[in-house]
């Protein structure tokens, strides 16, 4: 039993933090917010910097050109991305698509290898979460996946759908999809609806194999969102605590008032207890532990609840200035609200965790 990171894992996280510090500044995020264009704010530069660092293919085997690391190495990188409200859907690409394509073995190895070599992006869609587990939309001819992240950059899509013959998972090149961007509160997440026609050549799993794969998609999506949430909450509560030192009212910094202290402390307490659950989920995915679906649900339940608490608290503590478009707090608030409900909200995931953990 050892529940801690190694120095190498911490160094990897620090490497990602340094790259993001240089390439993902509040000014970059603001460029996207002000233009509505996700290609703004040095998106290409950032994507290739993360690619050069190996982050995008961290979980891919060395045989296909990846680093051959596991989720315990990845989780710190995901938190770092959350902390800067990273616009690119790195978490979905690196934490969901790459490991699952890798898990399918030989038939997809050469394609994964090409994608990694080319630094292309893969997005994932078609799976929602419910108390009973993943939910996939039924299709007739054309299939649709809503709220797919990072649609503008994606060169490939990993998509789930269902019809009379059962569920299936497709791996579809961008040119075979119709993509319609969907306006959303957090503009930087670049959401869209993907429409495609499932065909035998694009089907990578059907029947029981597809059920298993869809389960993995749902749990991995929840896990990576939970990690991002911890990152954004950590950054937001740290910034908010600093703000309470600077902002003076009644002749004192507002952070000296207990009413303010206790609000902010609640967020810090929540973070203290959500993070270990996220790290435990990372280990469960890395080792393919049977508990991984439970652990992903637990992590997302705690992180979603924390995200909502953090957003409302930090906004309240900032007061009027936090409610403005000019203040950078809005980036974190909107990321929290979006991630809290994406891939299973707190109530859904905590019920799922309880049922998986306690029913026999």
């Amino acid at each position, binding site marked *: *039993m*050892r*529940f*801690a*990171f*190694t120095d190498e894992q911490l160094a990897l996280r620090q490497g990602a933090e340094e790259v993001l510090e240089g390439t993902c500044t509040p000014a970059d995020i603001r460029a996207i917010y002000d233009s509505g264009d996700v290609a703004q704010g040095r998106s290409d530069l950032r994507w290739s910097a993360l690619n050069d660092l190996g982050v995008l293919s961290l979980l891919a085997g060395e045989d296909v050109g990846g680093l051959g690391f596991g989720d*315990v190495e990845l989780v710190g990188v995901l938190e770092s991305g959350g902390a800067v409200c990273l616009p690119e859907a790195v978490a979905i690409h690196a934490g969901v698509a790459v490991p699952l394509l890798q898990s399918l073995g030989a038939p997809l190895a050469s394609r994964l290898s090409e994608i990694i070599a080319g630094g292309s992006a893969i997005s994932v869609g078609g799976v929602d979460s*419910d*108390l*009973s587990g993943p939910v996939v939309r039924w299709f007739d001819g054309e299939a649709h996946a809503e709220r797919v992240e990072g649609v503008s950059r994606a060169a490939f899509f990993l998509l789930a759908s269902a019809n009379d013959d059962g569920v299936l998972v497709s791996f579809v090149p961008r040119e075979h999809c119709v993509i319609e961007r969907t306006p959303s509160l957090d503009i930087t997440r670049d959401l869209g609806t993907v429409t495609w026609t499932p065909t035998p050549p694009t089907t990578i799993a059907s029947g029981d194999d597809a059920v298993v794969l869809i389960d993995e998609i749902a749990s991995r999506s929840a896990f990576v969102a939970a990690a991002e949430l911890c990152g954004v909450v950590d950054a937001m*509560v*740290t910034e908010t*605590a*600093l703000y*309470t*030192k600077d902002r003076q009212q009644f002749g*004192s*910094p507002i*952070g*000296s008032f*207990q009413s*303010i*202290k*206790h609000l*902010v*402390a*609640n967020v*810090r*307490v929540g973070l*203290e*207890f*959500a993070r*270990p*659950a996220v*790290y*435990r989920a*990372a*280990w469960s995915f*890395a080792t393919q*532990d049977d508990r991984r679906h439970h652990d992903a649900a*637990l992590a997302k*339940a*705690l992180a979603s609840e924390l995200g909502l608490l953090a957003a409302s608290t930090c906004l309240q503590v900032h007061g009027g200035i936090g409610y403005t478009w000019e203040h950078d707090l809005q980036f974190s608030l909107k990321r929290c609200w979006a991630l809290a409900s994406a891939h299973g909200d707190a*109530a859904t995931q*905590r*019920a799922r*965790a*309880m*049922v998986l*953990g*306690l*029913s026999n």
Partner: protein
Amino acid sequence: MDFTFSEDEQAFRAEAAQWLSANIPAPGSLGSLDTKEGFEKHRAFERLMFENHWSVVSWPEEFGGRDVGIIEWLIFEEEYYKAGGPKRVSQNGIFLLAPTLFDFGTDAQRARFLPPMASGDEIWCQGWSEPDSGSDLASLRSSATRVDGGWTLNGQKTWASRGAFAEWCFGLFRSDPEQERHRGLTYFLIDMESEGITRRPIAQLDGETGFAEIFFDDVFVPDAQVLGDVGQGWAVAMATAGSERGLSLRSPARFSEAVKRLYELLIEREGEPSAPLTRLADQTAQAYCNAQAYELQTWWTATSIREGNGVGPEASATKIFWSEMDLHIHQTALEILGPNAALRERDGSLSDWLDGFLFSLAGPIYAGTNQIQRNVVAERLLGMPRK
């Protein structure tokens, strides 16, 4: 990172589980810890544990322990609560004072006090709070005056848990009247049979005398019973709160076992949870997730301690979390029980959930109120200004 247990750890778990399942008394058979009869029954169980080297597994063997590390200690705790072990009557001594004795005590003090503490022969109570010094502990006024060979204590302590029956008391007194606040305090180990001590048991919410007021009228304490240096009492007291074994005040297994019972109660009343969840099923799910989170955070902290890091102000976040979780678990159980929750059962004593609820209400108050803990989290973990 590795969540598997070594062969030694697994063997330790098996041995503990086997002994505990054979020896833990039937639930409820010891009665209430806060009655004289129940207190003595709990004490007898502590002695049985001690004789078999299970009462203080993490202590050195010379004091009755097994000299195992913090991971094994947590394994023991898991098995203890899984087997339905009773509340530990010696907890103030073994969990609060003992770590301080290990850090600040003399060899003679350790040899004198640790074995009877571990066997339950000497039960300790805590003499910190005073009528006018609760959250503001540093304002305490009970005094220690230098005399030949020791000190004379005067004043009044209150909310001393187990104070109605305990044999010994560890307390904080102002030994230098010229000094204020955190300075000029000294930590004493006091025999409750000393001349000049009067104790007045205080009935708690459940009507039982779980704690007491203690009056000191010219009570003599020899020099050998000063813990740490004269005038350094505050540092000694804060170490009690922050030392590595201080983690042990509430081990995670207590809550995960309570949540399992809560889930059974829910299913008994409502059936298996299904979408959309009822309000009570959702509250139960919250309790489940919190207990899981608490367990994981404990392994995280335990690893950090084993690797040589101390327990920092994170301990305040921990205290807030477990005490509010405990309250939430019991409130949910009472809501599931509905109007019957308020009924006394079992030969006039309180039902387990109601008893547990009353106990959990004290959590956010003792060991430093949760408001004080939130100040600590804000100031020391987040760097928010004191003034």
